[in-house]
């Protein structure tokens, strides 16, 4: 009776993993991107002894702490899914995948968790120097963690350093060259792109929060500084991301032409292919089944070929070349478009801010602060859709050209189990996200009171300043 309501284990496993990843990536990016800000504010607090840095350190550390707890809560279920939902993959490629994951937990995760304890609770118990060092070690932990995770992922995109063997009728991969396996050519591109994406996401978050406080009180000293800092960082990192992203794409073209074909919705192989900068659907059908030629596009002729092959007439392979049934083009194509569009928007925001800063009107209430406020979630959105391009673009492969996703998924998992776990995840993660947003709002509300007080103090100060000379004159 309820059969039609139950979800297929393979599809369910993919949705579950993708769904948990989409939530986890936000907290992971928050850790990675916020860590440098924490280090900066902690260092400034200790070195200048100024109260405003203590306040900023305390505010952002609170958000970091709740983000870290959420990141752990959403990350542990993700890592367990390798075993629960993709055991065939885990067994098949365990030698290549398990090592880096163990390195991550022992080298990076412990470091981050131990020194976060010192950072959160140890202000009165450790020396200033150790306190700053703790913030640095938390950052090292977060960045190293991301490195090992991306080592795993980039190996799955461009596997090397292994051999395929068959023993007692069971096939499996054996590690033959650890250096090659851990440091694939993809790693550099992925790591730089992801870490910068995390920094941009958090910078937008920091800038948005600062814009909110500056809007409420343009004279709040700590938040004026934060706004200036974050706008500067945004201008630099967002421009770098687009330049770097372009070079990364070139790498994808060379190593995963099928993914590139899906990113550009190119079905037929052609020479001298144009690059579609912007694309809009003409009909609903284009949303679910985009074909580059049939969309309304703003394109530059020959550019795709030029980017792919450094030759305007170079060959760009279309999806027809690959033996794939129903490639998930729509997700990849529109995710990629969204990411690129947002990337350009971040540059606009950054440059607009720098321009206003130079004109000396950065703190004035206006459209710019509103735009920053509205852009708070967009960095995370860009990061999530970026991962969709990477992960869905690789389908049907779980390990590019080595193992199909359908071969890696659990053979014993039933539809009932899948449906139960997927529903539980959907509910639990939705609750987690709502709770997180609520807590952030509370932390912001608490700070808001202080920001308003900043003003009172200043007004108070001015009043006494005004009265002081006249008063002394009379006596």
């Amino acid at each position: 009776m309820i059969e039609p309501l139950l979800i297929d284990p393979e599809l369910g496993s993919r949705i579950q993993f993708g769904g948990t990843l989409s939530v986890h990536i936000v907290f992971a990016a928050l850790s990675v991107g916020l860590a440098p800000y924490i280090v900066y504010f902690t260092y400034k607090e200790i070195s200048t002894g100024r109260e405003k840095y203590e306040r900023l350190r305390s505010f952002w550390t609170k958000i970091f702490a709740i983000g870290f707890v959420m990141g752990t809560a959403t990350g542990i279920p993700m890592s367990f899914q390798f075993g629960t939902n993709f055991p065939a993959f885990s067994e098949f490629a365990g030698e290549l995948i398990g090592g880096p994951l163990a390195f991550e937990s022992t080298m990076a995760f412990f470091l981050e968790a131990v020194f976060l304890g010192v950072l959160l609770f140890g202000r009165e118990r450790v020396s200033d120097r150790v306190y700053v060092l703790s913030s640095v070690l938390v950052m090292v932990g977060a960045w190293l963690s991301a490195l090992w995770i991306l080592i795993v992922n980039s190996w799955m995109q461009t596997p090397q350093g292994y051999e395929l063997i068959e023993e007692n009728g069971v096939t499996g991969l054996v590690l033959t060259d650890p250096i090659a396996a851990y440091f694939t050519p993809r790693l550099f591109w992925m790591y730089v792109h992801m870490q910068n994406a995390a920094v941009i996401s958090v910078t937008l978050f920091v800038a948005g929060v600062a814009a909110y406080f500056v809007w409420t009180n343009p004279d709040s000293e700590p938040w004026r500084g934060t706004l200036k800092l974050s706008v500067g960082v945004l201008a630099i990192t967002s421009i770098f991301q687009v330049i770097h992203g372009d070079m990364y794409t070139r790498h994808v073209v060379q190593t995963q032409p099928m993914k590139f074909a899906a990113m550009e919705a190119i079905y037929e192989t052609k020479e001298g292919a144009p690059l579609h900068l912007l694309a809009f659907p003409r009909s609903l059908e284009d949303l679910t089944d985009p074909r580059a030629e049939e969309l309304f596009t703003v394109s530059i002729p020959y550019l795709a070929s030029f980017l792919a092959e450094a030759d305007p007439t170079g060959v760009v392979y279309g999806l027809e070349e690959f033996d794939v049934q129903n490639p998930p083009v729509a997700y990849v194509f529109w995710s990629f478009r969204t990411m690129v569009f947002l990337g350009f928007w971040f540059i606009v925001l950054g440059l607009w801010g720098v321009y206003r800063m130079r004109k000396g009107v950065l703190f004035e209430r206006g459209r710019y602060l509103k735009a920053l406020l509205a852009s708070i979630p967009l960095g995370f959105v860009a990061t999530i859709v970026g991962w969709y391009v990477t992960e869905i673009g690789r389908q049907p492969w779980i390990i590019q050209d080595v193992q199909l996703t359908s071969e890696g998924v659990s053979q014993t998992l039933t539809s009932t189990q899948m449906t139960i776990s997927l529903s539980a995840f959907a509910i639990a993660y939705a609750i987690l996200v709502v709770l997180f947003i609520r807590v952030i709002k509370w932390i912001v509300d608490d700070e808001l009171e202080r920001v308003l007080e900043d003003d009172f103090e200043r007004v108070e100060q001015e009043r006494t300043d005004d009265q002081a000379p006249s008063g002394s004159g009379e006596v």
Partner: protein
Amino acid sequence: MTTNFPIMADVTRVDTVLFGPVVPVDEYLIPWLPELWFGILLFTLGMYVFLDGFDFGIGMLYGTREDEAERDLLLSIFGPVWDANEVWLVAFGTVLFAAFPPVYASLLSDHYLLVFAIVFALILRGITPELREQRDEPEWVRACDRGFVVGSTLSPFFIGTLAGSWVFGTGTIALPSVLTGVAVVFLSVASGAAYVAMKTTDTLREEMVRYGLYAAAGYLLSVVVLLITVFLTDPLGVRETLLSTPVLAVVLVTVVFLGIGVVAATRDALEVTWWFYATGGVAFALITLVAILLYPDLYPATGTTVRESIISPLALNVLTVVVIPVLFLVLAYFRYLYTVFSGPVEHEDGYGTSD
């Protein structure tokens, strides 16, 4: 493995060797390296059961406190260390994956729903104290408190159930696995009480001693009932092992540790630290029992042995060279963490970030 991509064939398999091999490729660094990794695996599990165990225990004892100040005190006792303690579970999971991938795959996929039950209990336990700090509304605080106690009770129970099912090769709702869950719950309360007693000075300490003694008795009882059940039902032919000298020795050691704990707990405050160490001894005795029962069949349900499920020599050598030094480093900063936060806790410390 259907690869019919003419374009791709020569692109993805570029095996660039940057350096020569730093570890032997075709033989283990030492002949008993697989057994060493079996030991490391159980060591990470032991650290988890001991360290996060006392967090769980404090979480359950938290349910017995009505006084707001005492509740805050309990939270501040484990606040600085629990994040780090919990990582031992991740370390255990990834070491199992890295060294014994087939066992990792079978254990997790065979216990599909139980694994997620553990995960959700851990999430509940992990986020509630952090959330509680963020708002003063009584209803919010009460809801978080409830979630915290429930999560702290269910986590060790489900983890113990999984361990029982793994070791005895029974299903998850069989008596031996459920009894293992109960034993782990009691053990957690015992270490939690000892840890709180170590960190406090006044009447709270005396009450903790009482709870600690009950929990120790409960632990001993549940382990004895568990062993008798397994002996009688004999699910995987371990009856002989249960009567062997190592097992009896471990049971004896457990009783000795429990005895030391009881003596230390009922004497003056200075000896409370010994009580806490004794509960650690009990936890590691339990893990030793698990080790004896698991060796050499790392996955008893299918009879997969340590040697059959270990990764190939090169991969294991790399794992050894990288992870073992790092583990010593980890132990060093755990020592540092516990030194920084040693001594009695003051009420003002609170949980979470101070303003």
